[in-house]
Structures are given as structure tokens and as C-alpha cells.
């Protein structure tokens, strides 16, 4: 059986757990705990403390395994564990929380130092009126060179077809030789 491992990462409240719950065909293995940090409690009540795991099986015997990381930097040992075995990854960015871009940038840096694998940037919450545009977010994340930067697409983590479309884009990336 061939297993393709995809990691979904990003800052707190970007929609990683939701993304995996939306795409997985099995009941997602999650490790959500109640939030005690005040700045996080304003955004959501539960947070991932180890990882989320979802799966999609295909008749051919292939299997897509999707792992979601915690968003907080104190869990970087989990980021490391998961990314080392990944074939590709998605960074989710909450487009209307510019205060999180710095932490997203740190995640991006952490991951790209560890691995050189296909990457997709998914923008969530783009329906908010104050959401940033993809090009502005690219600049905020330090991805200024358009020719080498990873694709940036909008994702609605609660919508199955949107999440599938993101996954297809990622797999298409894996078929093309890497530019960076």
C-alpha cells in the first residue's frame, strides 16, 4: 500500500482541524483541549495539542494521510516530527488576522529549513470584509518573488469541494518539478 502523507499547518485558528475534519473519510483523530490562553480563547474554545489525523483511501490501495499540527510555537517539536515524514504540506493563513502573519512566517521558515517538498498556501476566512488580498499576504509572508513563491489559493475549510480542490492543487504540484 502506498501512503501519501500531507501535513496541514498554520497559525492558531487558521482552520487546520476544520480542514482535516472536512476532507477525512474516517472520524478524525484529534487531540483538542480547552484553551486557557486569553489571546487564543478570544478566537476559539478548543485547540490541538498533539496532532489531528484524517485519511482518504483509494481503491487502488493508495491512501492519503493528512496530519494537522498545533498552531502554537511551543509545539514545534510536533511540527518537526510531522514534517520530516511528509510528502507535501499546506500552510493555512487566516486572511483577516494580520496579527498572525508573523507567526505564519515563522512556521514557513521552520518548515522550509527542515524540508524541501511541495508547498501550498491556503487562505482561509477570505469572505471577511477586512481580509487581506493574496498579493498583500504574500508580501507579508516574505514571499516577494512571484516566480518562485508557492501557489496561494483561497480555501474554505468548512466546504468539502473547496478543500478537495486545494488537495488536488497540492497533488498537481507534486507532479511538477520543484522550482525552489
Amino acid at each position: 500500500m502506498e501512503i501519501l502523507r500531507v501535513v496541514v499547518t498554520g497559525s492558531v485558528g487558521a482552520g487546520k482541524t476544520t480542514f482535516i475534519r472536512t476532507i477525512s473519510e474516517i472520524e478524525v483523530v484529534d487531540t483538542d483541549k480547552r484553551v486557557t490562553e486569553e489571546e487564543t480563547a478570544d478566537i476559539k474554545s478548543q485547540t490541538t495539542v498533539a496532532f489531528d489525523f484524517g485519511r482518504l483511501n483509494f481503491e487502488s490501495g493508495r491512501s492519503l494521510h493528512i496530519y494537522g499540527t498545533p498552531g502554537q510555537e511551543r509545539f514545534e517539536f510536533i511540527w518537526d516530527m510531522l514534517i520530516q515524514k511528509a510528502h507535501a504540506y499546506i500552510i493555512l493563513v487566516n486572511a483577516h488576522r494580520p496579527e498572525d502573519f508573523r507567526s505564519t512566517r515563522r512556521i514557513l521558515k521552520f518548515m522550509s529549513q527542515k524540508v524541501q517538498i511541495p508547498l501550498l498556501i491556503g487562505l482561509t476566512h477570505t469572505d471577511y470584509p477586512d481580509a487581506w488580498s493574496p498579493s498583500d499576504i504574500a508580501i507579508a509572508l516574505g514571499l516577494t518573488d512571484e516566480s518562485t513563491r508557492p501557489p496561494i489559493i483561497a480555501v474554505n475549510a468548512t466546504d468539502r469541494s473547496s478543500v478537495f480542490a486545494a488537495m488536488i492543487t497540492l497533488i498537481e504540484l507534486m507532479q511538477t518539478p520543484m522550482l525552489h
Partner: protein
Amino acid sequence: MDLGNLLKRLKVALEQVSTPPEPSNPISPVLPLEEPPNQSPIREKIMINASMLQDVLQNFVSGTSDVQGIALVSPDGLALASVLPGEMDEERTAAMSASMLSLGERIGRELARGSIDRIVVEGEKGYGVLVGCGIDAVLLVLASSAVKQGILFLEIKRIVAKLAPLVS
């Protein structure tokens, strides 16, 4: 890796996802704020008891032979109080403790082991034991390999009984 096939199947799967086109109904906020912020009674109580917690932990480490360190952390991985060997980073240890207990509990549930009493990591140089301490805290105890396991578990049970009321 032959991805073409997989891609085809994903695309088929996508087509089968018969989500009706999103009507332009009023968009409900994706992240509803369920509770008004500033509701953190736990934190306030912890602040009141912080020095008391620290004392209890300090007494435990100095009063129990072969115990090398202890940390009390929130279920989402933030340190509440700790007495740790010098080379250990409190923030990192706290996050690891929360991950390990949460994952252990989840594995216990998936593998039908019932409710989990403790998670034990046994290494060449000693033990790391994790237990829940009320619903608002997780306790990590580090002990050297010389420790008698029965005594260790008993002492942990006692200190949990002492700490749980302070954090609940």
C-alpha cells in the same frame, strides 16, 4: 510515485461531492465567538495560588527521594508551576506534557483501554510519569531509574490530591 491515478481519483471524488453551490445567503461568521472573552476564572484562581503551587512542588521534589523534577501544566500546554532540572526548558516541557497526555488518552480510547490512569515513559535513565490533575491541569513527574515504582505512583497520587483543589 505515480500520482496521475491518485489525482484522477481525487478529481472523481471531487465531482461526487455534491455540495450545492453556495447560495448567497447571509454568511455566518466562520468562527463564532461562543463565549464573551475575559472569562477566565481559572487563571485568576491560579494567580492567587501560584506561590502555594510552587511551594507544594518544591517540597515534593526535595522531600521525595529519586524525584528529579515536576511540572504542572494546563491541558493546552502552558506551564502553571514547575521545578525542573536546570537544562530543561519549562515552556517546551509543558507543551510536550500536554501533547503526550492528550495523545495517550486518545490512544487509550481508540484501543479500548478505558480511562487512563497515567502515561509512563520508562527510559534507561529513569521515568517520566504523566497524570491528569483535576480537569484543568496535567502533572509531569520525572524520577531517576533508582526509584521504586510503587512508591513513585503512590507519591504521585498523594500530590495530585493535594494539587487538584488548588487548580480547580
